[in-house]
C-alpha cells in the first residue's frame, strides 16, 4: 500500500512540476517586456556547431547587435531571439523550426546560413505563416519557394552565371572540371555554371560530386586530372575547398582554380596553406567594409565596440536580417502576415551589406566583385 502511495505521490509531483513549467512559459509570453513594452520573440535557426559553425556564430553576433540596438531604441517592443542549432543539417533545421513556431511562438525566423537546411525548413515555416529571412542561403531552389521566404544574399544563379562568364572570357578557359559538394548548394552552382560555361562555347570535361564528410579528395582529383582541364571550379565550402587545393597541389595539378563566395574564410588558408593562393572567386554580397555609407559605418563601429573585432560579411548579413525583421515589426506590428508584407515591399533599404530590394521571389540582386587569394589574404582580383 505504501508503494502505491509513493508512486501516486511521485506522479503528482511530476505532474505539478510539468504544469508549472507550461504555465510559467505561457505567462512569460503574456507578461510583456521591460516597462510595459510588448515582448516579441524572433527565432534564429543557425549552424552554431558543425562544419560551418563559424558562419552560425558570426551571424548570431550580427543578430545580437541588431537586437541590442532595437531594444535601446524601441518605445513599444522588447525583442528577444530564441536560438536553435541546425548543425548544418536539414533534419535538425526542420525540428528547430517546429519548436520555434509551436513552443516559442516566434513571429519571424532568421536562418539558415546554408541552403540544405533552409530548403527543408521553409515549407514548415510557410505552413505556419511565419516569415523566414536567410543571411546566406543561396540555392536557386529557394527563389519563389514561399511567399514567406526572403534572403539578403543573392541566388547562385547570379554567382554561378558570373563565374561561367569569367571563366570563358576573362580567363579564357576552354575545358573546366567541376568538383561540387553533394547538396542543394553544390548541385545548384554546378548546374548554373555548367549551363553558362557551355553556352559560351566551353566544355565541362568532368563533374565530380563529393559527400559533405569527405576529407580525402585524391580519388576525385585523380579522375579530374585525367580529364585534362585547364580550370577547376569548386562548388563547395571553405573546409573542403582548402583540402582540395592542398591535395591538388600535392598531386601536381596545375589548373586554374575558381571558387565561390563561400571560400572566403580564414580556415581556407589554414587548411589549404599557400596552395590557396591564386584561387579566383566572386564576392557577390554587396558588403564593402570600407564603404562610406552611413549604415555600413555605423554598423562597423557598433560591432567593434560590442565585440572588439571587425564584423566580416556573415555578421553583417545576420545584422541585416534581424534589422529588417525589427523594422517590419516596428512599422506594421508583430504578426507574420504584416511582417511578410513589409518585407515584400522593401525597396532600397540601406543595410550593413549595401542596398536591399526584394524582388517577387524574395531574392536580392547585388553587385559582384572578383577576388583572389594572394599571400594568404583575400584581395580584389586585378588580372
Amino acid at each position, binding site marked *: 500500500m505504501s508503494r502505491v502511495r509513493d508512486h501516486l505521490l511521485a506522479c503528482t509531483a511530476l505532474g505539478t512540476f510539468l504544469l508549472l513549467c507550461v504555465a510559467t512559459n505561457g505567462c512569460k509570453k503574456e507578461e510583456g517586456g521591460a516597462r510595459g513594452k510588448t515582448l516579441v520573440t524572433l527565432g534564429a535557426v543557425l549552424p552554431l*556547431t*558543425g*562544419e560551418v559553425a563559424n558562419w552560425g556564430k558570426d551571424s548570431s553576433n550580427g543578430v545580437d547587435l541588431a537586437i541590442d540596438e532595437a531594444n535601446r531604441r524601441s518605445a513599444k517592443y522588447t525583442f528577444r531571439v530564441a536560438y536553435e542549432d541546425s548543425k548544418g543539417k536539414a533534419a535538425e533545421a526542420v525540428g528547430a523550426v517546429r519548436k520555434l513556431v509551436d513552443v516559442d511562438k516566434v513571429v519571424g525566423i532568421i536562418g539558415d546560413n546554408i541552403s540544405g537546411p533552409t530548403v527543408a525548413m521553409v515549407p514548415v515555416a510557410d505552413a505556419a505563416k511565419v516569415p523566414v529571412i536567410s543571411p546566406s542561403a543561396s540555392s536557386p531552389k529557394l527563389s519563389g519557394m514561399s511567399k514567406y521566404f526572403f534572403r539578403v544574399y543573392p541566388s547562385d544563379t547570379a554567382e554561378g552565371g558570373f563565374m561561367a562568364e569569367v571563366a570563358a572570357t576573362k580567363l579564357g578557359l576552354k575545358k573546366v572540371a567541376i568538383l561540387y559538394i553533394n547538396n542543394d548548394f553544390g548541385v545548384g552552382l554546378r548546374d548554373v555554371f555548367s549551363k553558362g560555361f557551355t553556352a559560351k562555347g566551353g566544355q565541362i570535361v568532368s563533374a565530380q560530386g563529393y559527400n559533405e564528410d569527405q576529407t580525402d579528395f585524391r580519388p576525385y582529383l585523380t579522375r579530374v586530372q585525367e580529364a585534362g582541364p585547364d580550370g577547376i571550379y569548386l562548388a563547395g565550402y571553405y573546409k573542403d575547398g582548402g*583540402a582540395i587545393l592542398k591535395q591538388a*597541389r600535392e*598531386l*601536381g595539378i596545375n589548373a586554374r582554380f575558381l571558387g565561390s563566395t563561400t571560400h572566403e574564410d580564414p580556415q581556407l588558408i589554414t587548411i589549404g596553406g*599557400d596552395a590557396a593562393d591564386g584561387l579566383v572567386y566572386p564576392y557577390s554580397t554587396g558588403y564593402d567594409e570600407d564603404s562610406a555609407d552611413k549604415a555600413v559605418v555605423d554598423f562597423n563601429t557598433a560591432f567593434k565596440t560590442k565585440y572588439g573585432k571587425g564584423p566580416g560579411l556573415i555578421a553583417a548579413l545576420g545584422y541585416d536580417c534581424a534589422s529588417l525583421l525589427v523594422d517590419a515589426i516596428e512599422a506594421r506590428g508583430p504578426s507574420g502576415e504584416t511582417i511578410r508584407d513589409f518585407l515584400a515591399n522593401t525597396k532600397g533599404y540601406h543595410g550593413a551589406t549595401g542596398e536591399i530590394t526584394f524582388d517577387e521571389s524574395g531574392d536580392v540582386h547585388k553587385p559582384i566583385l572578383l577576388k583572389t587569394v594572394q599571400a*594568404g589574404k583575400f584581395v580584389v582580383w586585378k588580372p
Partner: protein
Amino acid sequence: MGSILVAAIVSGSIYALVSLGFALAFRISSVFNLAHGILLVTAGYLNYWLAVQHGLSPWISVPTSLALVGALGLTIEAVLIPAAKTAGLKPVDLLLLSWLMLLIVQDVLAIAFESQSIYVGASQVREGWAVFGGRVTPLQALIVATSILVGAALFLIIRRSATGQEVLAVGDDPRLAMICGLNVKKIIGLNAAAAALLTAGAGILMSYQERLDPTLGFRFSVIAIVSTLIGFPLGPAGAVVGAYVLALFETLVLYVVDPGLRDAAVYAGLFLVLVWTYRRSLVPPEG
C-alpha cells in the same frame, strides 16, 4: 595505376598501425573492442588542441597526446575489460559496451569541439615526389616509413624477446602463465599501452595529413577488426598484411568504381571477411 598503388600504400600504413594496435590488444583480451578507434580520433583531437589552440610545439604536443591516449587505452584494455570479464560479462556484452563507449567518447569530442573536423597541417604545401607514376608527399613517406619500422620492430620484439614471448603466453592461457610465475597484470598493462600508442600514433599522423572528424572512430575500429581477421592465420604480424590488403581493396573501389564509396568499401570488406571466417569454421580441413 601509380596513383592507386601510392594511395593504397599510404592508407595501408595508417591502417597497419591501427590494426597492429588492435591485434596486440585482441591477442590478450579476445574482445572485439569497438571503442578501439576512439584512441585514434582522441589522439588527433588532443594534438590539435595542444598544438593549434594552445600553440605548443609538436615536440610537446605529440608526446603529451601519446601519453594521455596511451593511459586511456591502458585503462580500457587493462582495467575495464578484465574487470568486466571478472564480473561475468560475455563477449557479446563486451562488444555492446565497447560500442556504447565509442558513442559516448565520440559525443564528448563533438561537444568539446562543436562537431567540427580538425586539421593540424603546415602552411607550406609542396608538390609530392613522383613515385611509380603517383605522388608522395614527405608526410606520406614518413607515415609509410613509421608503419614499416614500427611493424618490423614489434614483430622482432614479439618473436625474439622474452617480453614478446610472455605476451604470447598470456594471450594463449593467462591462468597457466600465472602459474608459471609470469606477472600477468604487468604484461597485460604493457601490451595495452603498446596497443594504444600504436593507434594514437596513427591518429596524430592522420591529423597532419587530412581533417579528422569525431565520428571516424567506428570506421577505424571496423578497419582494425577486418585487417586482424584477414591476417589472423599469419600470427601477430598478420594484421599488417590484412591492413594493406584492405587498403588495396578500398583504393581500387575508390579509384575504379566511385570515389564516394569509401565507407561502403570498408563495410563490404567486413562482410566478406566475416563470411570467409564463418565458412572456414564450418568446413573442417580435409584429412
